[in-house]
């Protein structure tokens, strides 16, 4: 009743207020923030790629025509692919184990996963910088057990980036995969066993195909996240393994070349959005953002 009275008294001001506030209006402040400080700045940056230093597609010609930049693109894909592959290789058995383990042990592993995920990114990267250095623990242990004579170069190269980034990405692949395997009906595998399938046959022909949508979605997400990574490659990689995000930062910070920076940003954006479109098209929206 109260709301009705309000509406009636509101009608008295009808000339002043063209319409009643709706729930849509509630989204306007956030929409304004996003348009002003997200959509607009990104649009300006991308526009600068075709207007600076002179109008045209010169920046893109330079970016896609130079072997230096093409190597950085290739390297970005190689690192991301490698990280995704290793994460999947380790993540699948772990997610599988977590899905069927006694819950008391599983909850300890989950706590470790969350602790790792929530620990500051720089702290985690710093740990690997120290662990992997020439005089670091890993080299010492490897020499100690007689596996190598001289310290291996583990940091400032592809090995360092792959280890550091896999470390960060593992929880992002384990958690969604766990959800998918959890949902598989054990009776299906029981049926496979009853029909005489060996463990290998059950794994390759039943469990893996059933987990495949989750694996593909998780892998795609890790791949896309890796493509845009900046901090870990910059600290654990060498100059020879520069990635696209570092290139963008370098164009803007050291070279103050906004045109090239904008062009490189557009390349990264287009690839990212294209891969997300694939994910949305084939796997739905429920695993977006890794939550």
């Amino acid at each position: 009743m109260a709301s009705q009275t309000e509406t009636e008294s509101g009608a008295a001001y009808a000339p002043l207020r063209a319409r009643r506030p709706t729930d849509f209006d509630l989204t306007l402040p956030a929409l304004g923030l996003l348009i002003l400080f997200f959509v607009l700045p990104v649009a300006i940056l991308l526009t600068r790629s075709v207007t600076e230093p002179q109008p045209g597609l010169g920046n893109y010609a330079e970016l896609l025509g130079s072997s230096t930049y093409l190597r950085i693109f290739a390297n970005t894909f190689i690192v991301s692919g490698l990280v995704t592959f290793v994460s999947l290789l380790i993540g699948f058995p772990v997610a599988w184990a977590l899905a069927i383990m006694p819950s008391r042990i599983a909850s300890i592993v989950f706590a470790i996963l969350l602790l790792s995920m929530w620990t500051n990114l720089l702290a985690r990267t710093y740990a690997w910088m120290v662990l992997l250095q020439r005089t670091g623990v890993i080299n010492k242990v490897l020499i100690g057990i007689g596996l190598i004579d001289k310290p291996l170069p583990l940091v400032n190269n592809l090995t360092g980036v792959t280890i550091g980034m896999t470390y960060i990405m593992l929880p992002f692949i384990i958690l969604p995969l766990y959800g998918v395997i959890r949902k598989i009906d054990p009776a299906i595998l029981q049926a496979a066993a009853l029909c005489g399938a060996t463990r290998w046959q059950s794994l390759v022909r039943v469990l893996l195909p059933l987990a495949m949508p989750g694996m593909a979605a998780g892998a795609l997400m890790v791949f896309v996240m890796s493509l845009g990574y900046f901090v870990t490659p910059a600290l654990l990689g060498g100059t020879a393994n520069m990635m696209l995000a570092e290139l963008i930062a370098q164009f803007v910070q050291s070279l103050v070349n906004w045109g090239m920076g904008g062009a490189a940003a557009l390349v990264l954006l287009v690839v990212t959005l294209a891969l997300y479109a694939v994910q949305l098209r084939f796997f739905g929206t429920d695993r977006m953002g890794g939550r």
Partner: protein
Amino acid sequence: MLLNFDRLGWWRLALIGITLTTAAFLLLPVLFIAALSFGSSQWLIFPPPGWTLKWYQELLADPRWLESTWTSFQIAIIVTVLSVLLGLVTSFGLTRGRFMFREALKALFLTPMILPVVVLAVALYAFFLQIGLSGTLTGFVISHLVLALPFSILSITNALEGFDKSIEDAAVLCGASPLEARLRVTLPAISHGIFSAAVFSFLTSWDEVVVAIFMSSPTLQTLPVKIWATLRQDLTPVVAAASTLLILLTVLLMVLVAVVRKGLKS
């Protein structure tokens, strides 16, 4: 019988082995840093030749570390408050509103979460240089708010979608105004979502480094930027001490979340 733990045979050992190795792989670096921060070796030799608190003393004696921590804290708190308020209002609009393009709007609100952060960092850096917000606290807050808001909207929208709206309608039928019903009935019911939104927003800002690198100026930098700048020069154990304090904060937050979740359930 691959989904029955007791009937896996020797595969069970293999799975447990991989899982425990992975758990150790994830946990050990964190513990390692904490141990090193008390080690006396400047060169981070492990196991340390002796134990000391001097890295913590050095950390606390340097005003730049304290200043950057304070800056980070201020920004994170302001971002948390704004992100929760804005997230709350927006989530009500998104879950209750019946308008065209609602799903598209929701997707737009979540985009900052999935786009490469470096693109936003560079774009905002250029924009703030032009409008004079570069290197200011306001600039930091705005850019972190853009990154934190999706997490806030997601948490609160999830909570709102799980809340039975007929309870709110009942309050209105009993004489509450629609606003009153939302504030006094719905808000307490979705407090767990609001709490998650606050924690996620705080951590997003507190831990954020890429945008912060571009926003910072020689006189205004956050803790992650200070760590980043230090790490580019050398691997000093002072960073181990700073990292250990950050890890401690993470553990405290995790415990807080666990306690609050338990409290809300009972």
